[in-house]
């Protein structure tokens, strides 16, 4: 860690949370991304699983801490400890299950209310390998995503379609957001130069209180 700081690539530590109804494929997506594995079945997630992934985008190095959360309503109350301080959220639905898409909308509302616009949102329609059983139209989902300022992707964890792109796009947007916040910080305190110089920025240190926006 310390050695790499000499070459001074910016290192970003981002926290990403996966939310969505049970059985939409959150665990499959993240296992595909982190370990490039796919199992037809795995046990249901209780509490939340923690995974990490390192990637490089341009001259930026990104360490992702990923929380794969439990889907069932029972565990909803535990959500805040996982999404609090998150830089990004991936809200997943199953394209064959319209209810799961409605649940995504609920999550968007909750996140906007609790975190404002600080958090980057990505909405994913998973299981495109089951295209024939599709119950959520692409247009509907895309329109909705646009209306809440989220990007929308379609994935198949099973066939490894679109998964990499999701995390890449989200990472790019989290970097942009981090740059923007840095710039704002600098603008607020022009005298303090220390924050600007090539320091290792730990985004977990961004202010806990989100900038409240007018949404919802």
């Amino acid at each position: 860690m310390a050695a790499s700081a000499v070459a001074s690539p910016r290192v970003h530590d981002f926290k990403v949370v996966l939310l969505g109804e049970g059985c939409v494929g959150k665990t499959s997506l993240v296992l595909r991304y982190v370990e490039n594995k796919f199992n037809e079945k795995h046990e249901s997630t209780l509490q939340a699983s923690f995974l990490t992934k390192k990637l490089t985008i341009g001259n930026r190095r990104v360490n992702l801490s990923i929380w794969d959360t439990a889907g069932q309503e029972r565990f909803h109350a535990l959500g805040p400890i996982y999404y609090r301080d998150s830089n990004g959220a991936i809200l997943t639905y199953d394209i064959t299950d319209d209810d799961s898409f409605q649940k995504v909308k609920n999550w968007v509302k909750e996140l906007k209310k609790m975190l404002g616009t600080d958090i980057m949102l990505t909405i994913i329609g998973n299981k495109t390998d089951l295209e024939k059983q599709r119950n959520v139209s692409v247009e509907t989902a895309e329109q909705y995503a646009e209306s809440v300022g989220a990007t929308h992707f379609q994935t198949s964890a099973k066939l490894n379609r679109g998964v990499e792109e999701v995390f890449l796009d989200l990472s790019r947007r989290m970097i942009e957001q981090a740059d923007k916040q840095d710039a704002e910080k600098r603008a607020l305190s022009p005298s303090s130069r220390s924050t600007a110089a090539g320091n290792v920025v730990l985004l977990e240190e961004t202010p806990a209180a989100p900038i409240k926006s007018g949404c919802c």
Partner: protein
Amino acid sequence: METAAARSRRDELSAILQQEVVSLDQLRSCCFHGVPDELGLRPLCWKLLLNYLPEKKSKWESALVQQRNLYRVWTEEFIISPGKQDLPEDAVDSSSRHDITCDDHPLNPNPQSTWSTYFKDNEVLVQIDKDARRLYPDMCFFQRSTEFPLRTAGSDDGTKMVAAEYLRRRIDQCVLKSNAIVKNRSGGWNISGGAKRATQYLNLSGTEEAHWEVVERMLFLYAKLNPGQSYVQGMNEIIGPLYFTFSTDKDKTYREHAEADTFFCFTNLMAEIRDRFIKHLDDSSSGIISSMNRLMGMLKEADEVLWKRLMELDVKPQYFSFRWLMVLLSQEFALPEVLHLWDALFSDAHRFDLLLDICVAMLILIRDQLLDGDFAATMKLLQNYPISDVDQILCKAVQLRRRVLDNLEQLPEHPLELTP
């Protein structure tokens, strides 16, 4: 190689079980160190330890007959003919038993209506279905067909169905229904949902049931009989090891009734731990949050350095011990180890205090690694617990409990006779 200790424990256990009145105290202290697998006595011991079988042997048979009959009645009432009891006779003809038709109707706004209940139950059923299918995915056992499928009495044309068929049809209906809704929105009728379901049952004929379907039926019945709890994810992880144990009993008669026996043992076990599954009890003294807080308090007591480290890293107990406590560690170890661990848990006279001791022991056993790691390393260790030797963990747990009691200056001979 069998050790002398194991042999003597085996003899001791056989002797205890041969008594006309089985002494629960003796059974507990003997089973604490694990019921030897080769004797096939675990199913019997668990039935006793979970208070399903009475201590008096002479009462076993009548108790079993009574409970198994009761289970049969419930299956009929809640699965084969749901709502039948509320309906006039002619509304339930043999060909449409799973339909509910009478003065009541699907759009009845009354929440007490049979239809309304039926739809709400379907949501629970679909949820259970998702989880039961993926129970212990690494084992083929739950995907295999059962030896003794539950057959229904048979309809007028003489065809007999397995009980699982009723829930299969009901789940199929739910899937078709949701497709129909989409038809209204997007205009395209999509019938493939039904086809998709059908393929998932392809490997079983209409006269067979898979073990996971039996689990599904038990969980659905439990949800019906306990509406305050309904079904919560994790219950599948509790019932799974029980059902596995009972349905692999060496005794054929017990195997044949594994479902009913599992159901009642599960119910008894849940009576002791259910509060952890209920959201609105999270903050009560018996809820999951206070259990986690107790665990951290005990860790602080036993190893303050380690406790401090976890605090510094902001590794919250929710991140790891929520799952540990909620499903009695069944997701942390392979099934044979879980069974062994549960021998001890079920033998604990102050049931599930031991669970907290075990969790503390698990933390302390990997303290050096925990003290070394950063947040990510610590989290990964805790979520993929590295030690599989359950005996080692149990030993440590007993040691910890002894030490606590030493401090209280009241150390009886045997750890299980200790009182808090």
